[in-house]
């Protein structure tokens, strides 16, 4: 297991280098120039000389290979550079937003998993009964309703029925847990509903498949209690594909909540992504893409390791 983990971590390095190459060079061929946007966007009279000087100061006048090499060397030292727009370290810019985005993702995951496992299991066990129909209606609703729209409904409901809205500036959970939860529970619910629908449907279909397997029939024939058949034999196996979905959805939530963030006025990674792309802030975009790529790589690794926990037949490193 340890060797497998080390191998996977080592394999992540070429994956991340591939991502780095792609993001660096693709960004350079996209039309737009941060220096033009930064200086000419002010509306002032800026000479071409000033533009060139700024380009030089930012190191954009050097050959692409040199710029790439320097970026890679710095990244190896965990130095992600400075935002070309705000002049602040990329790590600082991301850190401000990551805390919020990560917390929303974790809370949404908790909500989704807590609801999806019982919903999916009940729907499978009571297939074609009113329980199954109810779960199916709820999950189809979750898949059909965009999270941002559900978020808007939540906000309007809070305003209409309680004349109250959650705070619109972020308070870290370690500073004031109540204020923090008051703000973030609502977006977590909005995105958690869709997330829950995806996972519940996956558990339902997976469980239905597993329940028809020979080993379930064998277990029942041996007289194992039905509760144990479901929880120990069926559900554990049915959860495997659901774990993959949970992991991928979690990673998506880190940077993919652009519109939901706008509805709740959240200062998250999604908003930062959009802003930095519109400004052609290369260093910041690169930093965020690498962060999200790293999340994907390591969440996938965690999923693979969880597989072994849920299915003892899976033995890595042998």
């Amino acid at each position, binding site marked *: 297991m340890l060797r497998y983990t080390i191998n996977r971590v080592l394999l992540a390095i070429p994956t991340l280098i591939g991502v780095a190459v792609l993001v660096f060079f693709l960004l350079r061929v996209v039309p737009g120039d941060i220096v033009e946007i*930064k200086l000419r966007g002010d*509306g002032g009279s*800026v000479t071409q000389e000033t533009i060139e000087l700024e380009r030089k100061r930012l190191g954009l006048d050097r050959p692409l290979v040199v710029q790439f090499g320097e970026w890679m060397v710095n990244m190896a030292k965990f130095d992600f550079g400075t935002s070309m727009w705000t002049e602040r370290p990329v790590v600082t810019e991301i850190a401000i937003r990551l805390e919020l985005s990560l917390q929303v993702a974790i809370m949404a995951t908790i909500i989704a998993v807590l609801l999806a496992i019982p919903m999916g299991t009940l729907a499978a066990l009571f297939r074609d009964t009113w329980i199954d129909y109810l779960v199916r209606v709820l999950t189809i609703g979750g898949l059909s309703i965009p999270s941002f729209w559900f978020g808007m409904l939540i906000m309007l409901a809070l305003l209409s029925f309680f004349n*109250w809205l959650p705070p619109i500036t972020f308070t870290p959970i370690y500073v004031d847990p109540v204020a923090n939860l008051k703000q973030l529970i609502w977006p977590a619910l909005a995105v958690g509903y869709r997330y829950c629908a995806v996972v519940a449907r996956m558990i339902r279909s997976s469980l239905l498949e597993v329940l028809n397997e020979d080993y379930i029939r064998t277990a029942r024939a041996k007289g194992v209690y039905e509760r144990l058949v479901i929880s120990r034999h069926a559900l554990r196996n049915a959860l495997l594909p659901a774990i993959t979905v949970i992991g991928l959805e979690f990673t998506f939530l880190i940077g993919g909540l652009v519109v939901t963030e706008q509805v709740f006025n959240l*200062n998250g990674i999604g908003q930062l992504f959009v802003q930095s792309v519109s400004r052609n802030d290369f260093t910041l975009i690169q930093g965020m893409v690498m962060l999200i790529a790293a999340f994907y790589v390591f969440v996938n690794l965690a999923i693979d390791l969880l597989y072994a926990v849920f299915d003892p037949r899976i033995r890595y490193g042998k």
Partner: protein
Amino acid sequence: MKITRRTALQGTAGAFALGLSGFNFDFTKAEAQAPNVKRGGTLNFAISAEAPHYDPHASDTYATLHFAAPFYSTLLRFNLSKFPSVEGDLAQSWTVAPDLMTYTFKLHPNVKFADGTAFTSADVKATYDRLRDPPQGVVSTRKPTFADIGSIETPDPLTIIFKMKAVNAAMLEHFASPWNVIYSAKDLAENPAGPRTKINGTGPFVFVEHVKGSHVAGKKNDNYFKKGMPYLDGFKGIFTLQAAAMLNAVQGGQVLGEFRGISPAERDRLVQAMGDKIRIEEDSWTLNLLVCFNVTKKPFDDVRVRKALLMAIDRWGGSVGLSKISTLRAVGGVLRPGSPYATPEAELVKLPGFSKDIKKSREEAKKLLKEAGQENLKFVLWNRNLAMPYTPAGVFLVDQWRQIGVEVEHKQSDTGPYLATMNAGNHDVAIDFSNLFMDDSSLALSKYLSLSRAPENRSRSTDPELDKLYDDHIRERDPEKRKALIRAFEKRVFEQGYQQPILWWHRIVPTHKALMGWKMSPSHNLGQQLEDVWINT
């Protein structure tokens, strides 16, 4: 706010008609206190865009001003209770020479910057030197405004003298411009570009933090030179980039106001939901959207094409429809309709692009396009992606031009790339804006000067005749002669069709009834120092 000729003259020509001296109430000697003012509390207000940087000298957007104004002072400022007259801010008193060639300001003593250093005339000099002649790498958006300043002298730490190269009848108003905040000479000597990223002012509030993407916060400046002010303990300007989030925040009470302006539909929603808890103030706005042709690109170098496109726009009909759904409202020329020098409707309808007989106008437009060989004209309309009012204005124009057979692709972009594209001259036709802080003709007309003199002229036109008319008007002290020169300037602009106002904006500001002391004005750039604002809890 209705502007009378008399009040306008108080601000402009009035300066030299009234003995050429100014006197300001000395806040440092008597504690300023409005009756029943309640002190304390933190004001949360919405800012619907985030400042790209902290330097108002280099900025054209209210986002910078609403962010930074509470931290800074200016030499003079507008008295919003008697708009457009000016009053002292850092200047305790001032005199203007009868020939308008010398302006002498006496400054308030015992003023300190937020970092504790003393404020002197050297700081004003360093600031104005930066504004009129910015060092390499520093942007001064209002550089042309101060081109007439010949020299700046500082005979003592509390006196500053501006000597002019030529008369500028509106100079006093320019000294009151909210954009010309005073920086520390020491800071500028260390790093002339420093104000982009660092705040150190003499204003009523001290900078606390800027959480990117979230908010800017300030706390009361205990050393503020106006004793007893500000009334608030602090403020938080919260960035609400989406109108829906901003409206929810106002309705839910998380913010007590949004000081730029909202649309009629948004106003109606708030009034319906909040009843008497919300205060709505309305005024015409010193802001217009323009249609702007890049005359360096074909076929927009042909005056016939430009005129045809302008003549196809039904401003009068558009005003009726757009005013219901957007902040666009009044039809006007280069000066705000209703302001003292604005062209009256009877004269305006005779100018190209303002006829009320739109059918006839469009027939003529088609004829002009045919003459120019552009019957199948297609182009890209470059626009900002702010929903209000840029999107409805863009949709409106596309429809107007479709009616004379012109096919237009509407492209919208974020503010940064939008401005950068226009400033680099990469657009065909664009929706531009003229953002004034008062009804001064020198401000309004400067946008139409030749590109070499006015970088904000995004039509990139060069017209020596317009430049001469502008110079003649700016030196002219007789209001009637000045008005005639403005009319001649406007006629020339519209006949050449480099750029032309689409519609003027209408400002609607929602504030909670608990918010007191904030004053409405025709410009969202004014009154944002927040020193006399308080919360009636």
